[in-house]
């Protein structure tokens, strides 16, 4: 069924970007590093290449900042850093996510009770 096939996509939409923000919350990371990390999470990203458009959008909205830096072992790297507005957005998501998850768990019966 198409709706079931789109379930993962629908669940990722709106949450994956905050997972990216959380990844660079305490340390700047370069693109390939972020992509590799999410590439290992099969339930998050469909493929590594789809994360670059997401990083681009987060940079355009001002939640991420990027800069190129020389690499000791390869081509230059593009490092991403969390901005102040991105940090605020991440904190807001955490609050909303907890409430959202509790509501869904209660309604769907996935709370583990």
């Amino acid at each position, binding site marked *: 069924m198409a709706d079931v096939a789109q379930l993962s996509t629908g669940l990722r939409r709106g949450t994956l970007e905050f997972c990216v923000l959380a990844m660079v919350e305490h340390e700047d990371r370069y*693109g390939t590093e972020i992509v590799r990390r999410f*590439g290992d999470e099969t339930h998050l990203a469909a493929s*590594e*290449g*789809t994360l670059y*458009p997401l990083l681009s959008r987060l940079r355009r909205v001002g939640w991420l900042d990027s800069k190129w830096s020389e690499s000791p072992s*390869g081509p230059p790297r593009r490092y991403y850093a969390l901005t102040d507005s991105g940090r605020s957005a991440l904190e807001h998501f955490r609050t909303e996510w907890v409430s959202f998850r509790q509501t869904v768990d209660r309604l769907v019966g996935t709370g583990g009770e």
Partner: protein
Amino acid sequence: MSNDLYDAVVAEYLREVEQRLHGLPVLQRRELLGDLEAHIATERAERGISSETELLHVLERLGTPAVVAAAAYEEAGLPLPPVPAASVGSASGSGSVTFAASSRFTGRAERTAPIVGTPVPAYVPPAPAPVIPPPDDPPVGRRGPFPPNGPGRPGGFVPPPGPRRTSGFGPPMPPTSGRSGGFGPQAPGRPGGFGSPAGFGSPVPGSRPGSTAWVRVLIAGAVLLAAIVALGCLAGAFLFRGAESDSVSPAVPAQPIASIGPADPPTLPPLPTP
């Protein structure tokens, strides 16, 4: 794996992605292609990719060009445009035309576009205006310094009706460039346009404008001087004859001609100075 093979495989992948990104803003398209290229280069350097299989595995993890492009459109908030089947994949043969890419992505990609029967891409790089050789006899209204209207280009300057002019605007050009016309791209030797007809009233190539006047002044002065000298000679001759007739008296008997010699020259009145 040789560098050439690596470059070829990567370029093919990026080209496939780029062909699907024609609906994105140019900066986002460039950014994504640059990120993908940097990702592949980083993977190659940090993971020591040495075979084509390993490289293909990196590209496989990145995702197919269609998946990557779909994510790009979704993040940009743009609808995914239909992808012409003829423009996807390697050489698709008939039904597509290949032209030089105006892409900003390293200039090595080629873009294919369908000829007919497929949707028109949202972004089509502007093709250069075709250079059409001008006709031998341009129509009236296209003479003058204004560029001719291209095919399908409406409007433009049309001079008012009137006698057909053979020369247009602007200063005449010396006929050294082989063209006498004055507008648009012209083939050498194209008739028409501004400028005086060749060889008539036009300055001689290489001559200075004041040289002819100097020659004319010198000739006129010489002619005038010659006329004055001639008139002076005539006046002198008349005076000489008059003086000679006055000095010969009828009472004086005529002498034989033989007695008149150069030792006894007649006394002549002084000649008037001219």
